[in-house]
């Protein structure tokens, strides 16, 4: 795949700058933890459920340690010590804890070794479940095969029951990937809602039970249709690692997980996000879940021509962070989008250039390609055409995860027929243009090649600048999506803490060990 005559040295050098940028932040990540990370530890020990005020037990416990213990040691040691003291199994302990019969913060804390040995049976069980899911997914994909380009649709009714109906219909119509959009605002909740839910705004709450219900539904259709239908949800937000854990337990296949999305688009504190993303990606890597990054959002906010290089730069950064978290290329679903104003002359050529650039820079990544949204208006016929043009670019540039545009993008979250028609649109393009990618060459030094080279050069320059300025200053300058964020601003900073010397996190220790072996 070499249609753009890109300069390999510029690519190499971009990767090195990105690596430096990520390493800088990683050194900060390594010495910090967050409440969400700690809650994730508890989840991966098998703790779930809520109290009578609907507060998740894991939140109760971590807050408890924060208030009454020393959270900088991590929650692992408290749990181990409390279990030892109470001599209860973890399930029984939780029940007793809710009934205020036992304490989590006990006086006598066990050693790191003992913490590990006490908790081992619990996390091994959970990690074992996750491993099973990973193996089951591989087996199913092997059995049914996998498409070069997968058609991805969303459901977003707010009601998981209705979502299931629609997801099944979409699966039968030909969708390969189904995402359940989250309710507006969930990413700002510092806890994960619990149980089956039927009311959400612009989406359905991400809960473990909802994950389970949808997984079951898609497996059912997948078996009928002899396709493995992938399930997607969103990690980004104040609970990134928790959702990563829940997704792993329920065999989700893709999680939206960007190293910076929460910072830029949800005004979550940058430290919080960087720390959380690392732990969440570690879990993703272990569970074989593809991450999807959010560079597409830059273009829905800013101009898609002027800011194209920020997408590329950010992809390199997301890649570098992913490498830190042991994610293999096959799980790096880097994002980009078809968002140029279609009234711009030759915009289609520019879109080809951008998409092909991403394809050539990250040849093994399952790129996530987003449809036109910003320049879609209420004219559903025009939108249907824009989506056809977008579908073509995917076919011409071999994207992997192909989000389908909806003709009603400017109007409402998709109706069942919108989704159906979108699938038919994509299928017609995929089929009627099947071999086109192998049939055409781009002119040497033509508009397409030059545009791709220009974007790469600018991304390279930007990465150099960032590697000099540092990530925090870069975010403060509003380089991405023209949105400025400060180191101490944003939500969730109070949930960040520096690890003490005797900090222990049995899950990350276990995962790091696993990756060092494998």
């Amino acid at each position, binding site marked *: 795949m070499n249609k753009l005559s890109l300069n390999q040295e510029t690519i190499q050098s971009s990767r090195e700058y990105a690596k430096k940028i990520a390493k800088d932040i990683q050194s900060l990540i390594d010495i910090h933890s967050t409440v969400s990370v700690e809650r994730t530890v508890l989840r991966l020990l098998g703790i779930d459920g809520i109290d009578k005020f609907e507060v998740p037990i894991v939140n109760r416990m971590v807050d408890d340690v924060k208030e009454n213990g020393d959270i900088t040691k991590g929650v692992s040691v408290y749990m181990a010590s409390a279990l030892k003291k109470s001599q209860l199994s973890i399930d029984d302990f939780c029940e007793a804890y809710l009934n205020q019969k036992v304490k989590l913060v006990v006086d006598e804390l066990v050693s790191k070794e003992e913490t590990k040995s006490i908790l081992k049976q619990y996390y091994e069980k959970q990690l074992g479940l996750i491993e099973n899911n990973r193996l089951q997914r591989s087996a199913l994909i092997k059995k049914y095969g996998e498409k070069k380009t997968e058609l991805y649709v969303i459901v977003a*009714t707010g009601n998981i029951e*209705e979502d299931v109906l629609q997801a099944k219909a979409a699966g039968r119509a030909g969708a390969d990937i189904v995402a359940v959009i989250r309710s507006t605002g969930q990413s700002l909740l510092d806890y994960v809602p619990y149980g089956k839910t039927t009311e959400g705004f612009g989406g359905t709450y991400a809960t473990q039970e909802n994950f389970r219900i949808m997984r079951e539904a898609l497996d059912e259709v997948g078996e009928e249709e002899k396709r493995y239908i992938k399930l997607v949800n969103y990690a980004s937000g104040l609970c990134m690692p928790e959702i990563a854990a829940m997704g792993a337990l329920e065999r989700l296949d893709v999680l939206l997980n960007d190293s910076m999305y929460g910072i830029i688009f949800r005004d979550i504190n940058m430290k919080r996000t960087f720390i959380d993303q690392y732990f969440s990606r570690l879990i993703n890597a272990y569970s074989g879940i593809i991450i999807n990054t959010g560079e597409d959002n830059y273009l829905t906010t800013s101009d898609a021509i002027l800011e194209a290089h920020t997408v590329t730069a950010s992809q390199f950064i997301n890649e570098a962070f992913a490498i830190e978290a042991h994610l293999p290329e096959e799980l790096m679903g880097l994002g980009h989008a078809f968002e140029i104003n279609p009234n711009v002359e030759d915009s289609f050529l520019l879109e080809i250039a951008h998409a092909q650039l991403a394809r050539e820079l990250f040849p093994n990544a399952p790129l996530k390609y987003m449809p036109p949204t910003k320049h879609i208006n*209420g004219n*559903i016929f025009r939108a249907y055409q824009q989506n056809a043009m977008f579908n073509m670019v995917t076919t011409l540039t071999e994207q992997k995860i192909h989000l389908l545009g909806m003709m*009603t993008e400017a*109007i409402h979250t998709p109706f069942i*027929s919108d989704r159906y028609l979108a699938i038919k649109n994509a299928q017609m393009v995929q089929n009627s243009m099947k071999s086109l990618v192998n049939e055409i060459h781009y002119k040497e030094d033509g508009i397409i090649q030059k545009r791709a080279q220009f974007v790469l050069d600018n991304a390279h320059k930007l990465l150099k600048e960032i590697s000099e300025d540092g990530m925090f200053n870069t975010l403060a300058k509003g380089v991405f999506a023209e949105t400025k964020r400060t180191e101490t601003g944003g939500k969730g900073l109070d949930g960040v803490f520096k690890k003490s010397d005797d900090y222990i996190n049995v899950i990350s220790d276990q995962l790091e060990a696993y990756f060092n072996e494998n």
Partner: protein
Amino acid sequence: MKIKPYGDTLNDGAVQVSFTLPMALSAKAIQAAKEIAKQMNLVDPSVVHSEVGGDNFSFFIVYGAVKAQVDVSKIKVVELKKTSKTKKEIENLIEEHLDRELVFVGASTGTDAHTVGIDAIMNMKGFDGHYGLERYAGIKAINLGSQVTNEDFVRIAREEKADVLLVSQTVTQKEVHLKNLIELVELLESEGLRKDVLLIAGGARITHELAKELGYDAGFGPGSYAEDVASFAVEEIIKRKGE
């Protein structure tokens, strides 16, 4: 069981509507579009798009929840039960039950020059992998082609001693197909031929219900194949013979 249109939630009644109004685009025109939508029984219609569609025309796209609902259990349809016999089965039926070749005469009548439909049913090679009547043993298929006047059609039917008449009508502008189809029935009746033939219509806008209303024995719409027509005709002829 009463049902309503479905957008993304049961009974949300969601429908999409588009139309043009013969007035220039303005806030008033948008309001007029909303009023039209309300008269279409949309509750709280939302004009999601408006555009100048030429001078003194504006184009609108509207979404809304419609009050309409239907009781599915009460719906009656005049439907032709497709017996879906194969070519072989039909040929066997003819051989077993009838002592002679059946004559099918077909045409696009009036000024209609659309032959693809009638050819799909009659010609050797057929359509979509389904052979046409010309290939059936026991059937003599005579395809007169297009723009055949009703008079010529009836004359040839008489000459050929047709058992089945196949009429194709595609152009429906200003209801010209109704005119053509009705005239043919009248002509057959006035010539005393109507009861001697099975009279079958087909075309993109033909339904069985419409054909029955017009005095035909059956009607076939899009997606019909030779075996659908043949099995209906042969079974009907055998049935009538028995009576």
